[in-house]
């Protein structure tokens, strides 16, 4: 009887381990959270957040059980012009003194293709939290060439949201920017 219970317990542990979501930590040196915003119809202004961290739980057998948590240092915004970066850090836009971190926490994941899915989550920007959806593609997973014990996986994601209506960034409209912000994200993550 004891043997039977022990066998069942071991089998249960092995099977849950085999199907559990893998945990990954985002590699901050290989994470690019970029954005584009229309500039008065002339062009799309580009920007990047230089400090990003977060965790991913990726269940390859059932992606709907996956999750994503992303922390972006709002003070690390870079748009290729220092004065504009300072403007964007002010309370007119990101308000980094009061809200130094932009966060995204997934609330649902939907499979849309062989290697793609839609991740919906709560984006908190300048103190306001609203749902935003990202179209995510899983690119690859492989060990590092110089360290077979370190497994790295990589994702690309795009998304768009109205920053004026959803997040109250009224000054964007005043200065002919937006109102939509298009996200262009690439992250690599290390398996834990």
């Amino acid at each position, binding site marked *: 009887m004891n043997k039977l219970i022990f066998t069942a317990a071991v089998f249960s542990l092995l099977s849950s381990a085999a199907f559990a979501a893998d945990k990954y930590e985002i590699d901050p040196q290989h994470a690019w959270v970029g954005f584009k915003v229309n500039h008065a119809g002339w062009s799309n202004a580009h920007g990047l957040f230089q400090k990003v961290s977060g965790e991913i739980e990726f269940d390859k057998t059932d992606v709907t059980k996956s999750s994503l948590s992303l922390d972006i240092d709002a003070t690390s915004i870079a748009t290729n012009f220092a004065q504009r970066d*300072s*403007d964007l850090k*002010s*309370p007119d836009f990101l*308000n980094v*003194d*009061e809200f130094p971190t932009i966060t995204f926490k997934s609330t649902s994941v939907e499979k849309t293709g062989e290697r793609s899915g839609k991740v919906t989550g709560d984006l908190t920007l300048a103190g306001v939290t609203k749902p935003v959806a990202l179209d995510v593609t899983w690119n690859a997973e492989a060990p590092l060439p110089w360290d077979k014990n370190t497994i790295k996986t990589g994702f690309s994601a795009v998304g768009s949201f109205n920053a004026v209506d959803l997040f*109250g960034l*009224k000054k964007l409209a005043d200065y002919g920017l937006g109102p939509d912000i298009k996200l262009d994200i690439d992250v690599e993550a290390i398996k834990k």
Partner: protein
Amino acid sequence: MLAQIVLSTLVGPMVLGGLAYFLGTFRAGAETGLFAACLLLAVMIAYLTLEGWPGWPPVSSKQKLPFILAAGAVAFGFWSIAFRKIGTIGVTLLFAVILIVPLWLIGAHIATRKPVELAIAVAALVVTLASTMLAHDHAALPRPIQVAQIAAAAWALVGLALVAAFGAFVGMAQVNGAAAAVLGSTVLLAIVASLFASKSGQAIPPGAVFAVNWLFAAFAGFTALYTPHASGIAILLLSLCLAVPPVLGLSRLKVFSRPGIASHLAASIAVGIPAFAAVVWAATAFIVQQPAQ
């Protein structure tokens, strides 16, 4: 876009300032707080025109500002009652508390991260308190200096607008500029009115000086704490504008105390000298900080 900015930052607030002057003074006389309340409400309307209605509850300090202005309008609306009943020491303590409240509401949660900026805001507040109480015997001052007390706050807010603009906070530059426009138009109307008024009357109700100095301290605190590259020295220089009218009053120089237009202009321009110095300082700091192109 430029026309829209001029309309919302300059023309609209000047009209609001004119309305505040007429509503606050045409009937009530110099002893009530109506003028002070009208001025702060005019600034609040100018703020809402520029920034839109804030959500409730406000999520950021910027969204707290219109509510702070509304609360200030109520407080200074009843200021003359307090002034009559609690004496100079009581008024000083009460004014100190009312000065601290906005700074507490907008800055307490970031104070540990921005100690230098907080120190500048507190220093501006102390100068404001000292300057206001130095001239608290408002009725004893010559009319040009009474009007110059409002002009001093207007100049200080003009300077604060430029400090915010140089420091990469354009929204607050507009708000400070709009507040200066509200006060500026009341100064012009007060000068005109005092030229035709009887010799015994006051040019500006005394509670209004407390209200506009409080307004400056609140906006100076917000500008110091939240402008990404605010010049602290410039903000301190701007607060000195408020100290000039009592000093001119104590000097008893005739050039600032005659009833004519020349004394009004001399006094209302003299109080702007620290603001001019502050703007030069802030502009220089801005130019020096720019990376070589």
